């Protein structure tokens, strides 16, 4: 299927630069980018709490979160995990 996309000059320059560096066509580059984005989005939408567990348990680190998930979701995992852990420490103090 063919689609027409309006891109800024800056975006076009970036596509050309990446296509040249990776030695692939612009079409293939865009298909690959869409696939990467789709996978990240799907992981976050369907399994975010699984990735929270992996991060909390030290199975994966911050860097891997940003590789596997969209940026906003990776940030949510890092920030939320910190506050959740601190909250539990406070509450254990209250309960004892």
């Amino acid at each position, binding site marked *: 299927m063919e689609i027409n996309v309006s891109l800024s000059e800056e975006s076009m320059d970036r596509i050309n630069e990446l296509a040249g560096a990776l030695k692939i066509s612009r079409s293939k580059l865009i298909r690959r980018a869409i696939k990467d984005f789709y996978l990240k989005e799907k992981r976050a939408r369907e399994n975010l709490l699984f990735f929270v567990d992996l991060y909390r348990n030290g199975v994966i680190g911050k860097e891997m979160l940003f590789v596997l998930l969209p940026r906003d979701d990776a*940030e*949510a995992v890092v*920030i*939320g995990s910190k*506050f*959740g852990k601190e909250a*539990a420490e*406070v*509450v254990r103090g209250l309960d004892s």
Partner: protein
Amino acid sequence: MLEDLIVDSSTLISLEKANLLNYLSKINYNILVPQSVAVEIGDICRLIKNLKIVELKGRTLKISKDLMDLSIGSGESDCVALAFRLKKSFVICDDRKLLRQIFFSSNRGLRKIKILGFGFFLHVFRRENFISDVWDIFHLIIEKNNWERSEVQVANYSFLKEMGY
């Protein structure tokens, strides 16, 4: 003497959406809300018997205004300022923006404040046997407040996991 909890509108509204406010009146804590939060939650105030509205004055008000200058919302600023005044180490708040602001803040005082969420109340309700399981209610609250894939969801999930649920 009952322990005081400083609670923001975000948490109280989330509990209201899940029909859990009646349990709040039965726990052994005082619920303190600044005047600004009382205005935000409106009629919810009347539904919680152990809720006390606190008016900020003098230096506390000044601290709150300083926090608002950091782009923190008025209710959240008042809660944090009240925590400083009462020498509390935490407030209960489910505001995504506040979590992010504290996380990225270079303000030492602000970074010392711990943030608990609605998960704390689920823990208390479970401990008091008001509810039989926390997870169904956790997912209900997340859905009703559109907190999927947010810092609030992760923070409360992590909290409950850390507490052994």
